[in-house]
């Protein structure tokens, strides 16, 4: 019996108080539950990409002192549906000089690589499609398939801009996979397992049980991973494969309609994946403070469902917060040059990440878990984390005030709007 069937049985048993194994149509019930679960996961990618595209455009508008999409629906929330319908109805152009099979297959390979990653993401205490014992390695493997798709798109388009985009993206992904893999190696060293649920289970609900606050090297490893993951996702400041001013649009330049949208789906799905990996590998994942995973598994009925929902919510909040950070970074920082990009990776991030692995190994050998030194280290790291959050919050508050004052000085009236009230 695989894990999905197990989860399906667990859900049925706890909600309906009946043993599905005793029913005559067990396989049918299980198939329906699994089908719904698969549909939900698939729909999650599609539906997540839509609103996030709208949110990103609104944030971009705000940061660039313009309005952004606000016409379709209240505040423009339905803009992504309109865009989707538009792209669906557009003609699916294939350039006459293109390598047709490669050109047609590339978007699907990119999307499949991204969607495959959702199989092992631990959404909640019992909510994971497959708890593979090689989970985090599987994540690295399946997302590395995306590069093949991007290269196929770049080559198949038979356009020099698309080819530049594809080759740039391949160079970038292959380079930045090294520091991100080393950072995740630190996590694996601490957790002692490759399974994603095992990594979450090795942490705890409270911040001082998270891996990021375990020791200074893990703290640095989190930021290393986050930087490398942004670069792997082709996001600004590392979005050279899509640099408009240099190569027009990159590997997706010749695509139109739904095929073009598939690349964007993959891009936004990738933001979610990198945020989710950061959340479960460093920030405690779905762990609920004060409740052990075994206690959740022991509960019955709606209580079980409630705990599941709470763990799911905690995970979603953490990951969504990181998604917002990624979006804000995109619209804040300028793009790097190609040589700067490679120097950042090979001269700084790679040696640093090796140093992190070494440091984690040394501390693992010297500082026993649960001892006095461990407690002091964790406490100090949580304090450092709080200080970082506090400084950023104060900085944001000050920026808002200065912004409002400037507006009043220039216009002589109070028309400045806070971020939660957009025009």
């Amino acid at each position: 019996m695989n894990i999905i069937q197990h989860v399906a049985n667990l859900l049925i048993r706890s909600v309906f108080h009946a043993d599905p194994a005793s029913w005559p149509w067990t396989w049918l019930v299980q198939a329906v539950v699994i089908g719904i679960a698969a549909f939900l996961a698939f729909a999650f990618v599609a539906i997540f990409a839509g609103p996030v595209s709208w949110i990103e455009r609104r944030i971009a508008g705000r940061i660039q002192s313009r309005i952004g999409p606000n016409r379709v629906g209240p505040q423009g929330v339905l803009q992504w549906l309109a865009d989707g319908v538009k792209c669906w109805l557009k003609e699916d152009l294939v350039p006459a000089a293109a390598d047709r099979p490669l050109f047609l297959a590339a978007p699907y390979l990119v999307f499949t690589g991204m969607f495959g990653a959702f199989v092992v993401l631990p959404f909640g205490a019992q909510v994971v499609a497959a708890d593979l014992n090689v989970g985090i390695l599987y994540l690295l493997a399946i997302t590395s398939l995306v590069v093949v798709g991007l290269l196929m798109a770049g080559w198949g388009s038979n356009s020099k801009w698309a080819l530049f985009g594809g080759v740039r993206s391949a160079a970038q992904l292959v380079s930045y996979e090294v520091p991100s893999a080393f950072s995740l190696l630190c996590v694996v060293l601490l957790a002692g397992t490759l399974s994603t649920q095992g990594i979450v289970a090795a942490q705890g609900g409270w911040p001082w049980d998270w891996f990021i606050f375990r020791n200074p090297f893990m703290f640095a490893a989190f930021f290393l991973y986050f930087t490398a993951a942004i670069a792997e996702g082709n996001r600004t400041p590392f979005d050279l494969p899509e640099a408009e001013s240099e190569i027009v649009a990159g590997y997706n330049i010749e695509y139109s309609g739904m095929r073009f949208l598939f690349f964007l789906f993959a891009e936004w799905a990738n933001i979610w994946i990198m945020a989710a990996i950061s959340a479960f590998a460093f920030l405690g994942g779905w762990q609920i403070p004060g409740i052990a995973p075994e206690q959740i598994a022991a509960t019955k009925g709606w209580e079980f469902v409630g705990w599941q929902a709470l763990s799911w919510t905690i995970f979603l909040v953490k990951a969504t917060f990181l998604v917002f950070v990624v979006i804000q970074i995109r619209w804040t920082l300028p793009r790097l040059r190609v040589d700067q990009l490679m120097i950042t990776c090979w001269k700084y991030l790679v040696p640093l990440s090796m140093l992190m692995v070494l440091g984690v190994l040394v501390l693992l050998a010297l500082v026993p878990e649960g001892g006095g030194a461990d407690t002091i280290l964790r406490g100090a790291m949580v304090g450092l984390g709080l200080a970082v959050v506090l400084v950023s919050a104060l900085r944001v508050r000050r920026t808002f005030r200065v912004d409002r004052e400037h507006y009043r000085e220039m216009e002589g009236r109070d028309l400045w709007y806070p971020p939660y009230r957009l025009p």
Partner: protein
Amino acid sequence: MEGFLFYLGGAMMLLGGVAMVASRSAVSAACWLVLSFLGSAALFAALQAPFLAVLQILVYAGAIMVLFLFVIMMLEGPVMPAEAGRPKFWIPAGALVPAAIILVATARWVPGAGLPGFPGDLPPGFGQPVRVAQLLLGEYLLAFELISIVLVVAIIGALALGSNERTLPWK
């Protein structure tokens, strides 16, 4: 389930391999090879070795083939012109492969020996990352390190083949 995975993976490998040899453009050939690697990953998964399956995708499909594609694109991979006939050595080579397959298949079915059985129960921890690591970094450490020499040779060979017009350091 294993049977299904076996035939699926085997078909992917065969299709990918044949199409790779037959395709005229170097980029298409590389993409077909990726399909072949995915098929072999499926075979590893069917053999209860998820770790090897994932490594197959990560190392071969994800890293090495990307590097291949990258290099092909940098060097403007050649597209073979449509030829009147295939090279002559194809015919003996094409005859050799099925002959070899038949030989291997029949050698396993010598009378009395029976089919080599699949062990009913796998040893505990079979195919787990821990077990693979113990074998790789313990028992077969020397062989594991020696294999890296093959990779170095391959890199030098690719350099020599790929840049026939440029000046190589030893020319």
